[in-house]
């Protein structure tokens, strides 16, 4: 599935007023996000959250970084899809430039990425940025 661009997501979510349709949108993104094969869900790729686990499989193609991500919780998968729309198939410079906190704030979803939430999302973002910074 081709993920929508960050700007499209912002528009879509703005259009969806109530929490139910907003989260239904995120859940549907989560369902559409390709799954990591079971055997790729290796422990060394796992970022442990308190409530749910997330996995990150990074790879490089020239100057373009690609990521496969997964979670056992579908809302987290939906939020990961948002993260992917920002980071996947981008250059390290683009990744480091992107204001992910601002993006989540604009979506009114900043609580999901705050350090107090144990869903592993913050850790994934940190890991991706670290990979981008070290090339």
């Amino acid at each position, binding site marked *: 599935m081709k993920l929508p661009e960050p700007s499209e997501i912002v528009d879509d979510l703005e259009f969806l007023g109530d*929490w*139910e349709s907003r989260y239904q949108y995120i859940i549907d993104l989560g369902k559409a996000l390709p799954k990591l094969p079971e055997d790729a869900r290796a422990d060394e790729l796992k970022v442990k959250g308190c*409530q*749910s686990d997330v996995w990150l499989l990074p790879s490089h193609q020239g100057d373009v970084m690609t990521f496969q991500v997964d979670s056992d919780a*579908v*809302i*987290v998968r939906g939020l990961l899809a948002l993260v992917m729309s920002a980071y996947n198939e981008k250059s390290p410079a683009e990744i480091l430039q992107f204001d992910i906190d601002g993006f989540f704030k604009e979506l009114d979803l900043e609580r999901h990425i705050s350090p107090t939430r144990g*869903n592993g999302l913050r850790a994934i973002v940190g890991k991706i940025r670290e990979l981008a910074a070290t090339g």
Partner: protein
Amino acid sequence: MALDVQAIRAQFPILSREVNGKPLVYLDNAATTQKPQAMIDALVSFYTECNSNVHRGAHALSDESTRRYEHARDVVAGFIGAASREEVIWTSGTTESINIVSKGMAQRLQAGDEVLVTEMEHHANLVTWQQACKAAGARLLVVPILANGALDADAFVTMLSEKTAFVAMPQVSNALGTVNPVRSLIKEVRARSPRALVLIDGAQGVAHGGVKVADLDCDFYAFSGHKMFGPTGVGVLWGRRALLAEWPVWLTGGEMIAEVSYQDATWGALPHRLEAGTPHISGAVGLAAAIEWFQTLDVADVQAHEKALLDRAVALGSEFKGLRLVGAAPEKIGVFSFVIEGTHPADIGFILDKQGVAIRTGDHCAQPLMKRLGLPGTARASFSVYNTLDEVDALFTALAKARDMLV
């Protein structure tokens, strides 16, 4: 006589607030209970009127705070039926209470000794004993549970022997709600393992009322204040006086000593010998107020009401498509743990929260138990005396929406 639940609710100010624009339905009582106004007032009164350190009575405030603090010990002693007030040790909570016992036992266990715990332990009553056994070269035996989440009492009995030095088990499982028949199990311990000491983890048991340590015939009983309407950061270790009087001191410093020189020290008398440093004075005072509030209720009424809540949840749960109850022991209290086919507990918890319904999701600090059950975790609604049947219905209305959105 039935409980006047609305009158009880009126005493818990937090219950009238909204969450995400919806009336709060608080069903996370096994994690922590809400606080009655009487408890909040006791904290405010302590800090407003008599705040001072205890046992240093050179002035009036110190006398007063010491009196309130030691009165709190009397309240706890009466509540759990301790033989004397010196048997009540203040701690920071269940975890610290168990640590005092397990660290003491680590010094007393011999290689070849056996310690029994159960498969339903939360980490506080597992990691403590596992580490004590490692330190002493003793063996940790884990009593299995049956498929329905009840303890396998037959296995428990066969695992007891003369080698058994310690038995630690929960009165009520936090993840499953199973009520263990601790009284009859302890009878088996006494018959088969004459030197074994027994600790009951009362974290989930005490708030349902009616606990008398002498009836249980345990040697130690541990619980937290915040799970029974009191403040966080305060808890209790009850132990038999003869044991506590000789128990290895775990924390040294002020308050717990008799004589101190630069090179040596002797320990004071119970209860202070196990309570080094300035205690959580307001916490103790608050816990006593919470207990005194709880004692105005009839225990049989409380338990009947909690049973009605759980029965309603189980009945509605059995009709709810895709819901599987986790833990269906015949004796259960307070906890409705479940999974819904095709969903992750974290997603359920999140969608419920959007509707004002607070539950807990995850492994409930019992990772080996979840592994044993083959689950990543569960969603858990847990009930207290102030919950209503309407709130149980609200839980299922919220769950239906969650299922519609997620599946």
